[in-house]
């Protein structure tokens, strides 16, 4: 999705390229077959999610399956007031804070790494494969290793130290991969022009690269925030005594059999949708502003 977000400048401009061959007149039969497949895929993708959003609005008689039993906000109130469901409020708080920290670090570190990988340097392949390794390694195993490491060093595992690092080992590879896609569309002529006009390296980064790459950096931030906010496997052994939200959800799936589980799902998805909407919205806004400036 990264490359597509980065592609948007070209595509917001009048689309010149057309779909292949059957551009004259009617659609081939394959269109209808594939359109049906696509429709079914989207329904299967969103359908179940919407089921639990709907079911979370039942009243006190509500169960885990349809049909709906009344409608109320009972389970949302229950979620934030009941003690037996655990510390939802506290974990929600921690998850947001952690996600913000992870986002900031991910954007800065990925941006710098993206700059570094533009030119070959001795050992770059090693760093690249280390990053790929960090991406594909089983999260639970890495989490356990981090937990044992902290234990061996006599440090306390907590969400802002060991879990932060464990999550970064997951968000940074994604961030750098997105930066690759973004950078490959960056025209080096602009940077050279800045140097020719006497800009320092820092000035060219601050005044040329960051503004030009802004939409890509927003995409990196989107990945950083959402991947951290939903991260589970790597946090399990590293978060210490205080849970993050996904860990709280995990323990609820094992012992809560009321719609408050669904209510929590609805709440966390609303947060995700707000973040996604804000990110995509600001990318589109930046592109639009740019488009109108270019025309004006």
């Amino acid at each position: 999705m990264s490359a597509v977000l980065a592609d948007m400048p070209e595509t917001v401009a009048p689309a010149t390229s057309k779909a292949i061959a059957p551009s004259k007149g009617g659609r081939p039969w394959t269109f209808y077959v594939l359109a049906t497949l696509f429709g079914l895929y989207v329904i299967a993708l969103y359908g179940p999610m919407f089921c639990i959003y709907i079911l979370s609005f039942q009243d006190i008689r509500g169960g885990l399956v349809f049909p709906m039993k009344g409608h109320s906000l009972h389970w949302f109130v229950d979620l934030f007031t009941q003690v037996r469901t655990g510390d939802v409020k506290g974990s929600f708080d921690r998850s947001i804070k952690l996600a913000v920290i992870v986002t900031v670090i991910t954007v800065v570190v990925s941006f710098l790494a993206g700059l570094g990988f533009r030119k070959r340097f001795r050992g770059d392949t090693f760093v690249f494969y280390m990053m790929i390794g960090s991406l594909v390694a089983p999260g639970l195993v890495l989490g356990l290793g981090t937990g044992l490491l902290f234990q061996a060093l006599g440090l306390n595992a907590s969400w802002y130290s060991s879990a932060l690092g464990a999550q970064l080992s997951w968000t940074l590879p994604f961030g750098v991969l997105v930066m690759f896609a973004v950078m490959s569309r960056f025209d080096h002529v602009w940077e050279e022009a800045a140097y020719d006009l006497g800009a320092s390296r820092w000035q060219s980064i601050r005044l040329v690269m960051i503004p030009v790459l802004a939409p890509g950096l927003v995409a990196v931030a989107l990945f950083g925030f959402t991947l951290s906010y939903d991260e589970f496997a790597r946090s399990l052994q590293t978060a210490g005594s205080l849970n993050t939200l996904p860990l709280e959800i995990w323990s609820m799936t094992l012992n809560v059999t009321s719609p408050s589980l669904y209510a929590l799902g609805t709440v966390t998805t609303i947060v995700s949708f707000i973040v996604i909407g804000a990110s995509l919205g600001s990318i589109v806004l930046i592109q639009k502003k740019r488009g109108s400036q270019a025309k004006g």
Partner: protein
Amino acid sequence: MQPSSSSAQAPSRSNLAGWLYVSPLVLVLVPFFVAPILVVLAASFFATDGFGGLTPGFTLASYVEVLHSALTLKLYLATIKFTVLTWVFTLIIGFFVAYFLVFHVRNQLLAIGLFLLCTVPFWTSNIIRMISWIPLLGKEGLINQALLAMGVIHQPLEVLLFSDLAVVIAYVHQLTIFMIVPIFNSMARIDKKLIEAAIDAGASRFDIMRLIVVPMSKSGIALGTIFVVSIVMGDFFVVKVMSGGGSASVVSAFYEDVGVLQYPTAAASAVLLTLVLVAIVSLILRTVDIRQEITR
């Protein structure tokens, strides 16, 4: 990402700059990816008192135990079964969804919009998306209700939820996006003129698919495969929740081992799994240079 001419002239300076830019990345990956892996590797050779205490030393006892256990083979077979099934379904769905978006949707802005529609759930919680199948697949779920109402079945189907079927459904639901994105990317790079030329030369729709689209999407398929295989093989919570405890995979057994503080056996099994994973990923990497692919 071509080696620039300046790096040939001043290799040491460009090496230094490159390392400076990637140093923050390395400073995160070394303590939170390399070190944890080494800790797990070390722990696999340690002896244990059975209560979580580790005695530094060198013994292959854990490996002997893991390799001699009949359970290990069963776990690997189960994991491979889930991996292959998930890979086949995500590949088929992912390939045709990407194909539809690239070659059948004529309006580019619409294609981007539909693509984002597919990617939005990726940025929401995996656990929530997984439990959202409960109201559908459960014994009193929507699917059973519908089938009973239509008179297709007279007893509710019990194999829908808490079964291997449910595990595969949850995997395909979560991971198809990892196929769609890279395949979409490589398909979008296919020059449409190539396909027009093929049509002019008398190629059939099937020929185009077989001789142009599939070969040129190979790198996307390879990347998607790496994601899907490594995630399924490293997963434990989908297996644990969706099978209702009835099935286990290598990592879910690892999770149980950690739960009862059997660190060395867990570590030995993790090391073996990592070796298998590295072997699979490097086999895939032999068919495609992903670094070139990603940074191009």
